[in-house]
């Protein structure tokens, strides 16, 4: 499935620059708010669900070349974090839904992790 399918299905808000998301293949999903676990466990090209909005999530996503970050519960990254994400080409999406529901919906869409 591609990232555009996920954005549409979950009605996600785009926080970073628009790209051709239909060309971004998402292979797997991952969720954790402990960045050390993410660094050890999130697969390349996956979508990462977290409510951690600290700037370090960009560095972690860039390091692992993740497909996108979905930030749950409307947690708001600061402007410097978004600027860094754009610079690194990391897509950040946000939703008022809780991580539990986001992951459940991704699973229903057929995504595995």
């Amino acid at each position: 499935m591609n990232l555009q399918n996920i954005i549409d299905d979950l009605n996600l808000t785009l926080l970073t620059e628009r790209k051709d998301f239909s060309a971004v293949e998402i292979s797997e999903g991952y969720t954790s708010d402990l960045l050390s676990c993410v660094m050890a466990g999130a697969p390349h090209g996956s979508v990462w669900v977290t409510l951690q909005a600290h700037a370090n999530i960009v560095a972690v996503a860039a390091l692992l070349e993740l497909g996108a970050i979905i930030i749950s519960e409307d947690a708001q990254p600061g402007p410097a974090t978004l600027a860094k994400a754009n610079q690194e080409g990391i897509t950040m999406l946000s939703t008022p839904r809780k991580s539990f529901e986001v992951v459940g919906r991704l699973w229903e869409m057929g995504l595995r992790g």
Partner: protein
Amino acid sequence: MGFLTTIRAELHVHTCLSPCAEVEMIPPLIVREAIERGIYLIAITDHNTTANIEGVMKAAQGSGLAVLPGMEVQTREEVHSLCLFDTLEQARAFDNWLRAGLPPMKNNPDYFGEQFVVDSTGDFLRREEQLLILSAEYGLEETFAKVQELGGLFIPAHVNRTAFGLLPVLGMVPPELPVEALEISRHITVEKALQQFPHIARYPLLQGGDAHRLDELLGANKFTIAEPTLAELRLALAGIDGRSFRISPRS
């Protein structure tokens, strides 16, 4: 400025106001225990509060023990950091700022433990109703900036610990955060910490007792300084003007 002396310090001490601390952590016992252990500089760092510092400072008067007012703050990211100050006024100003950002929730002593505000003799003054072990709504960067603005020293606490430690929670020291030192927990050696987190080698490392009980007053840091002030601690952390520090567990 006086002559340089080397003193043993414990910069991470809770009192009976922290719900997770033992009720024995009252001002006169903290002061007595520190001195018995040869520790002549402590910082009082309760979770998200400064209300018991005055009692400890009073209890320490005339004892030779220097007490720095501080706080162990829990920021939005679920990271704990020590915020140290020179004066009670600075610490209280920080407390006022932080308190406005704590989500209102009452403590349940059966579950979290009692939160006692006490006087310098350890006598009960009041129960703190607000649950103290919560994340404030402020982020790490803005909290760091507030501590700096008030003249304080900001040291991420037990950075190696999975629960509330900077490195497990945020994966790395935020590159833009100009921290002056990091605290490692008493459960790890410097060598092991550096093995596990090689990138922290460029920061001065302190070791904290994170004392919730009297026998956890570790005093693992030795500072060579002229007086127990933040300005002197900063010189020691930077290793300039003859000031220095080292981790030296008691034998």
